[in-house]
């Protein structure tokens, strides 16, 4: 797709990383006219100045409501329509809301030209969410490790156990009580704090 026929796409996102991931994906797919807006002040004026064909905005952004004003008849600009207005495409709507992104499309842009943009957007948003999730999980695993190590230390000291025995005790208790080892370890820390 040449730059002449490439629709102008604006990404409204306060997360620079996610916006970069999306922008990169769009460029790789041949969409060359991509602009990222990260500053929410005077958002509508910025968008009108850019006059895009497609606007992509994340659902965590309160400024989504600002964009709704573009559909008012009294605005003297090209009138965009929302992706959601197409009632036939329920699956796309569901997928994009699940992914956390919303698309606004200028009236007149053909549906078959929108679909690849939206699909790419959904997959990149999902990829970003997965990355974030993995990062969170890694952080919480590290946090758990620290808690478990401290709980083992307490058990070793109070009950004269070796490190391995302390760990086995934690694990068997967790299994018996159908809890996570981290939770059992945390309750040991809490109890020892109380009994100090």
């Amino acid at each position, binding site marked *: 797709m040449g730059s002449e026929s490439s629709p102008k796409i604006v990404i409204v996102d306060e997360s620079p990383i996610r916006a970069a991931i999306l922008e990169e994906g769009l460029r790789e797919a041949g969409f060359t006219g991509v602009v990222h807006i990260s500053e929410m002040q*005077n958002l509508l004026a910025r968008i009108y100045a850019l006059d895009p064909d497609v606007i992509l905005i994340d659902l965590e*952004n*309160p*400024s989504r*409501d*600002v964009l*709704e004003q573009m559909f008012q*008849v*009294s605005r003297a600009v090209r009138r965009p329509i929302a992706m959601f207005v197409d009632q036939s495409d329920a699956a796309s709507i*569901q997928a994009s809301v699940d992914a956390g992104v919303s698309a606004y499309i200028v009236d007149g842009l053909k549906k078959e030209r929108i679909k690849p943009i939206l699909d790419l957007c959904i997959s990149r948003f999902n990829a970003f969410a997965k990355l974030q999730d993995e990062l969170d999980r890694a952080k919480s695993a590290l946090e758990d490790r620290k808690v478990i190590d401290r709980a083992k230390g307490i058990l070793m000291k109070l009950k004269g156990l070796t490190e391995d025995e302390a760990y086995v005790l934690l694990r068997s208790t967790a299994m018996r009580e159908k809890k996570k080892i981290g939770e059992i370890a945390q309750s040991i820390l809490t109890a020892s704090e109380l009994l100090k």
Partner: protein
Amino acid sequence: MTGPLRIGFIPLVDAAALIVAVDKGFAAAEGLDVTLVREVSWSNVRDKLNIGLFDAAHLLAPVAIASSLGLGHVKVPIVASFNLGLNGNAITVSPALHAAIMAEIDGDPFDPMVTALALSRVVAARRNSGTEPLTFGMTFPFSTHNYQLRFWMAAGGVDPDEDVHMVVLPPPYMVDSLASGQVDAFCVGAPWNSVAVDLGVGHILHFVSDILVRAAEKVLAVRQNWSEKNPQVLAALIRAASRAAEFIEQPENRAEAARILARPERIGVDADVILRTLDGRLKISPDGTMRESSRYLLVGREGASRPDPVQAAWLYAQMVRWGQASVSPEALKVAMAVFRPDLYDAALGLNGDAHSGALGSVGAFAGPAFDPADVAGYLASFDVSRRAP
């Protein structure tokens, strides 16, 4: 116990009945397992309700109507069988605009006709001196805030589309925008007016109750097809919200309600500001001037919880007046049918007749009495409008 319900809300004081219903256990007592989901935009609330990610939502009353009519968006019939609040908004102006209006004022500053006329003189003076038009912030194109601002200024001869800029701003950005001069005034719900006054960047010019005696504000909205499939669940939800509204309206419970609402995962502002809102006792000026009104926000008293189709008709009339909808008897019927006092009465075992007559008046400070049977005649009496010819 029914299946778990997900209910969306925006952190505003008029979500009080919904939040208290869940956090005070009234919903659980009705056998409901409710998860409240805090949202950041009305567009999100609307879309997630429409596609079924939410079973119910705290929603702007005009959005429920617009959604049922398919205005500006997908057409999804919505049912509002519980009114979460009447009134509750206020118009806040910057210190500079406040001074300019007060310099032009001729009469009682709490009289909205007096301030609207003063505003029209301020607007004219700015035009004559080539100064930028004033900018007014509101929360959504289909919002009571939009219609209340327009109704007020148009009564003084100010055309909201020609003489000033009207811009949508998310409520949490209102105060910053006023402080930075991006807007000169805004109309928003609690707590944001009080936040602006407390920070010294705004004066509350009017409570919306100065402009309209009874204005349906937020509703507890569900999809119509959901309401038909889950009548018992909806009835239980209405009862839980009703108990919560009654709880909040008891003055001795207000401090507790304010503490519940103040939690970071709920509204997340100072409990004292919320308490002042519930009590209708607001600081209106940075100099500490207080103003009290028993009509500032009605959560459950004076029949506030019972949806009133006349209110829906009035909101539809505003959509017509400002060019968002065309006038049609069918559309009026659809709009009025969004508000369902019959479901409210059935859930609470009330006899609907006991309520009719006493309620239903919108009570605007300007224009003729509103008659839903003659929307076109009502609108013809207003000079400023965007009605389609």
